[in-house]
């Protein structure tokens, strides 16, 4: 019998459960390795070679090289681990979180200063809030680029 996972219909959200953790084990442990300065230096000097030292899937490596955090999360990454890549790149947590919305850094910061993203329309898949799949990507520049 399947386990009850009531969190699978929350839009724009991947819950890091035991299954995701299993998928992302090596990806997240690679991220942990970046807590050491010498590893950060080696990674920066040759990203692909450093990634090849880890038994990660090819897709996980591509997601890291692309710095696409939504992709990293789909293949088992967790944001607290992925934050080590951001730290290596000199990015703040707000820059990392914002990068997953499609908004520019300024747009995301302005949204937060204005009180953040509303839960209205963003509680369940199928509503019409700004985090729903049919409203992606967010942000003016992205919409222009996509048009």
């Amino acid at each position, binding site marked *: 019998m399947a386990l009850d996972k009531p*969190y699978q219909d929350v839009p724009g959200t991947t819950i890091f459960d*035991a299954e995701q953790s299993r998928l992302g084990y090596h990806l997240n442990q690679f991220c942990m390795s970046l807590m050491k300065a010498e590893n950060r230096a080696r990674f920066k000097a040759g990203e692909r070679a450093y990634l090849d030292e880890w038994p990660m899937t090819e897709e996980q490596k591509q997601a890291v090289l692309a710095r696409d955090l*939504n992709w990293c*999360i789909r293949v088992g990454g967790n944001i607290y681990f992925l934050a080590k890549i951001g730290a290596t790149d000199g990015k703040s947590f*707000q820059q990392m*979180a914002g990068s997953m919305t499609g908004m520019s850094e300024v747009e995301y910061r302005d949204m*937060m200063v204005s009180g953040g993203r509303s839960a209205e329309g963003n509680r369940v898949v199928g509503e019409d809030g700004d*985090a729903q799949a049919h409203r992606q990507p967010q942000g003016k520049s992205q919409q222009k680029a996509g048009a």
Partner: protein
Amino acid sequence: MASITASVYTSHVPAIGAALDLGKAGEPYWQKVFSGYDFSRQWLKDNTPDVIFLVYNDHANAFSLEMIPTFAIGCAAEFAIADEGWGPRPVPVVKGHPELAAHIAQSVIQDDFDLTIVNRMPVDHGLTVPLSLMCGQPAAWPCPVIPFAVNVVQYPVPSGRRCFNLGRAIRKAVAAFDAPLNVQIWGTGGMSHQLQGPRAGLINREFDNAFLDRLIADPAGLANMPHIDYVREAGSEGIELVMWLIARGAMSDNPPRVAHRFYHVPASNTAVGHLILENI
């Protein structure tokens, strides 16, 4: 006999620590956050306990995916400051209270809560940011701290009900400690925030303020709220709020005195909530 005299609740946003460490606390953006703690810093000076039992979560610093303890109690004499990737925060080392920590571990495990005993555990912003908010930038923290780390990173995390009952077991353990210690318990994390995916940046003032109301007046009822309600209403990382129920469960069953209450949006990606409750 030791006793728990008060509880403190606060968000533990890493950017708050960075703002303080980099001398940005006076900027208007951050002043709106720090001003909510002016009362609290004076309150802690006037009400310095012998020990702080500090409930927080590690954010992939002390614990990788090699080991994921649901509840971990720090029993060491000293805890180093973690390097989270930006270098360790320039804050004092955290001194523990091994005697009380070991006593609580013994009592609470016998009450059926399977704590993991940890003797080497660098502490991250989850623990140090609340200390900074409440103490400012002292040369040493004002008293020993027992770090109590809860897994809220990998689901399933412990339920609100279990956290509340664990708090009660901690209260009982403290009361049975054979020295007249004044103990505070702090619950940290939250409030509403989501750090991942297209839904990143979610904030829910109504939920947060109702949570504060119920934490004060109806904690046993609040403890029944299922995880999915936190996720839908307060964001995927808002689940950290279950840790506040550990601190609340450790308080007396009588209604507490509300010494201070503060709420502000935003600090970085997060809603900042803060309460000080005193046992009467």
